């Protein structure tokens, strides 16, 4: 401590004195600057005081927001799917209401609602500036609008605002994909950059509305108006028109998507349709749809509960989030692995007795009487399980996974949608890691016919089918064709992306395709219900077993409770010789692929090839 004190005082007194001389300079600087401030105060308050007083009373500038219409959403041919319409809201401007309680009571009576509902809304936006309009009621009808406009004088503080709101021209069309915009939440407001959003702004909440928020949003306009002390507009100073958002052109085909949704109507399932030569998704339907209109401007608790409690799960986009055992559609993978690994040749004959046994466990074929002697082509077209058990056994689960991966299974396809599921392609390593158990040989049997741990989304199966159809190119499924400026100018165009190449030779793929043609067109084929007269369709049925309680195992399908029934798959492409589209149908808990899914694929095919349903049915 002594040393430390000495350190301080090692300077001599003289040093301190010179230091203190500068204190006078500091005083002078402070004095001068304070004088500047006082002079400025004098100038503002005394010299120009009355001028500013006048300004403060008569010349107040308010900034009013003008919401920008969001960009339209178009189908691949430019047909409008989603646009905007004017929507009239009742807003409340606290500052203009000298007697709020009376006015709110009056308004509640006009709207025929409980006063507490309005008071809740007002309380929600407490803390906002008093002149900022707060929304009390959205999208009122014409009658209410006219009534309120006629009684304006009795309702000081109540105003009507007209803002653009989403107009869904085809109701719940592609509801999971398009999503909806809504009022920005506190959380979203905090995480956005400053000045980017303000309370009450619209922001994409789900689906493409959310992903492409930046493009769709547009730019808010502003009105600068002079108001008097009572908040009444004196004159408009400057008007900055809002800039509408950019249009989003999808790859979806309006008619095809409508056909898919019509086919699914009232059922739980998904239909995916892709252009096999580019990966462009032409239809991606999931049923039941979300009721988009209910979500606009905030869904009510009752409606939300209805969505949540529906046993058919309307909130789930089954095409990308539903993960199902791929069932017999997976035999495409097993066949490809078998051929390419030379485990089988087209001539290889197996004998199906209706089941096979491994380690004293019986593995059945769906056809209990058995297919007897059977080759690859028939095994595919008649979907013989025993044949593929044997192929799977020879190839092994890891090889199967390799081929599955090269066809896009077991990983997210990368489509521009949120919350896509990756499905699951099991390997020995996967089981060791995730279950900490070693692989059982019997599990390979299940995997080779698409059961067991295997999981896939309808989009993955469709992409696999498209890859097979186009000769082995794995495209990334794409949903967005282009972004267009409001006046139609192209801003960004999206080109197909190739994500990989199917393992195996073109010859192997051709052999499998032939089996799929026969599955639809031969006498014993399982997919006969998707057959068209004019166009050759190639397809594969699938039935994915749902783990069910022992008590239902030997009960006929229609007596099993809904949630234990099998899922039905059908995946196909057409025309077989020069493929254009791939269609995958998944029907939840509806039984066999051939009977429950294939007819739906046919409806979509008919729409694509513009065949009249009556005519084709009449012929057959």
């Amino acid at each position, binding site marked *: *401590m002594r040393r*430390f*004190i000495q*350190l*301080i*005082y*090692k*300077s001599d007194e003289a*040093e*301190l004195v*010179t*230091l*203190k001389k*500068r*204190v006078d300079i*500091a*005083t002078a600087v*402070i004095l001068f*600057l*304070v004088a*500047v*401030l*006082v002079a*400025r*105060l*004098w100038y*503002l*308050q*005394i010299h*120009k*005081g*009355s*001028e*500013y*007083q006048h*300004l*403060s*009373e008569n010349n*107040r*500038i308010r*900034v009013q927001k003008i919401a920008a219409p969001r960009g339209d959403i178009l189908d691949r041919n430019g047909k409008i799917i989603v646009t905007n319409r004017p929507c009239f809201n009742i807003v409340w401007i606290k*500052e203009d209401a000298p007697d709020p309680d009376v006015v709110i009571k009056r308004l509640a009576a006009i709207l025929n609602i409980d006063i507490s509902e309005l008071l809740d809304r007002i309380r929600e936006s*407490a*803390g906002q*500036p*008093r*002149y*900022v309009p707060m929304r009390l009621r959205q999208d009122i009808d014409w009658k209410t609008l006219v009534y309120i406009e006629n009684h304006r004088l009795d309702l000081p503080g109540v105003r009507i605002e007209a803002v653009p709101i989403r107009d869904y021209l085809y109701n719940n069309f592609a509801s999971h994909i398009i999503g909806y915009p809504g009022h920005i939440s506190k959380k979203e407001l905090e995480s956005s*950059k*400053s*000045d980017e959003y303000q309370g009450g702004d619209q922001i994409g909440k789900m689906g493409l509305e959310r992903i492409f928020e930046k493009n769709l949003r547009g730019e808010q306009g502003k009105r*600068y108006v002079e108001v008097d*002390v009572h908040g009444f507009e004196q004159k408009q*100073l*400057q008007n900055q028109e809002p800039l509408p958002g950019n249009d989003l052109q999808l790859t979806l085909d309006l008619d095809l998507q409508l056909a898919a949704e019509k086919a699914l109507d009232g059922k739980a399932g998904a239909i995916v349709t892709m252009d096999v030569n580019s990966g462009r998704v032409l239809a991606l339907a999931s049923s039941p749809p979300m009721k988009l209109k209910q979500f606009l401007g905030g869904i009510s608790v009752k409606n939300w509960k209805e969505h949540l409690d529906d046993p058919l799960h309307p909130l789930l986009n089954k095409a990308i989030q539903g993960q199902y055992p791929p069932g017999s559609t997976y035999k495409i993978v097993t066949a490809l692995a078998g051929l390419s690994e030379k485990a089988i040749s087209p001539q290889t004959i197996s004998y199906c007795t209706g089941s096979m046994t491994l380690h004293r466990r019986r593995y059945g074929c769906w056809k209990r009487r058995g297919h007897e002697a059977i080759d690859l082509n028939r095994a595919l077209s008649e979907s013989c399980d025993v044949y593929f058990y044997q192929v799977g056994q020879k190839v092994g689960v890891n090889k199967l996974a390799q081929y599955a991966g090269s066809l896009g299974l077991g990983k997210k396809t990368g489509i521009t949608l949120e919350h896509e599921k990756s499905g699951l392609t099991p390997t020995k390593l996967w089981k060791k890691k995730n279950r900490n158990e070693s692989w059982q040989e019997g599990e390979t049997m299940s995997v080779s016919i698409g059961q067991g741990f295997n999981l896939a989304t309808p989009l993955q199966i469709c992409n696999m089918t498209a890859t097979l159809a186009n000769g082995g190119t794995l495209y990334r499924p794409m949903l967005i064709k282009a972004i267009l400026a409001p006046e139609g100018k192209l801003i960004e165009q999206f080109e197909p992306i190739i994500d990989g190449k199917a393992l195996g030779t073109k010859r192997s793929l051709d052999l499998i395709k032939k089996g799929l043609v026969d599955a639809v067109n031969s006498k014993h084929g399982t997919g006969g219900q998707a057959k068209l007269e004019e166009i050759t369709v190639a397809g594969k049925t699938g039935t994915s077993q749902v783990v069910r309680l022992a008590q239902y195992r030997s009960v006929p399908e229609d007596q099993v409770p809904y949630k234990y029934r099998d899922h039905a798959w059908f995946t196909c492409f057409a025309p077989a010789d020069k493929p254009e589209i791939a269609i995958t149908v998944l029907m939840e808990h509806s039984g066999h692929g051939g009977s429950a899914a294939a007819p739906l694929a046919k409806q979509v095919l008919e729409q694509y090839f513009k065949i009249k349903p009556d005519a084709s049915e009449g012929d057959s």
Partner: protein
Amino acid sequence: MIRFDRRLLTNFDWGLLFLVLVIGLMCLANLYSAIYPNDSHGTPVYQKQLYYYLMGFMLILAIISVDYKIFLQLNYKIYAAIIFLLLFALFFGSSQSGTQRWINLGFFNLQPSEPAKLMLVITLASYYSSKDPDKGFTLKELIVPSLLTAVPFLLILKQPDLGTALMLGFIFVSMTLFVKLKWQTLLTLLGICASAIPLGWKFFLKPYQRQRIETFLNPESDPLNTGYHIMQSKIAVGSGSAFGKGYLHGTQGYLDFLPERHTDFAFSVWAEEWGFAGSLFLLTCYFAMMLWGINIADSSRDKFGTLLVIGIISLIFWQAFINLAMVMGLMPVVGMPLPLFSYGGSSLLTTMAGIGILLSIRMRRYQKPS
């Protein structure tokens, strides 16, 4: 080491404390008006500010109970701690409207850039008081204090918080000019500064900061966007005229034309309601506080004390001057609170700690160097 000496009490500077109290009362009354009528949830800002004031007085009590020379001893520890907090805020701090300034302590959002100002004062006072070149400091001897300033300066600029970073620069310049410089050094420094301005303009300022300065220099270019704040503030101040519109009767604040009216623009609310008379009174209080401080510097018996006082005065003075000049439309908008008057815990506690140090130095002026 800490002996209680009755002379400590007799030498206590009641005048300075009284000034702080008067400004504090004006501050609370003004905050009440700034958010009037208060219809938001939660604790109103004037109440929180009252708590900060109480905490501030306790802080003063703690600071005056120990000899201020302890800061000389703790100097580098304080420095290291503040730098750590600044780094922490930058990487893990909570961000608000695009800046990383706050450390959330649960009950309090600490803004480490505020205590950083006081920390710099202590650091520079320690450094300069330990050296005494006969003919003034040379450029080479200024390298160390420049670096000591540059580290927190850059960290705060990165947040980004231009106002506070600028403040550190002002403290450095004020304190360095106060100690003796060789005149060659002074000229060189002036040259460096002059050439640094265009560089800083280009590389350091964010576009919005550049726009603010451009708007200030040419207000007609953008009368309704960036200039909006200054224009509304000028209307509020000017419309106060000679005697103001009366307490709680200011219309500009009430009608939300004034942005940030409880923080940086608190003075415009005051000026509108109390007019030229009230504004002059507030200004006089600050001026008196500065003169009081200078008197303390003058009466201090050691170099460290004198430099510490000069640093603290420059800290309070420059903040007050820049804030007032900005509110009156003499300067571009930078984030700068009016010490003791704007709402904000970190800023208030820092200023109160500074006042505490002033009081501590005043109390111990009789202590003879041994």
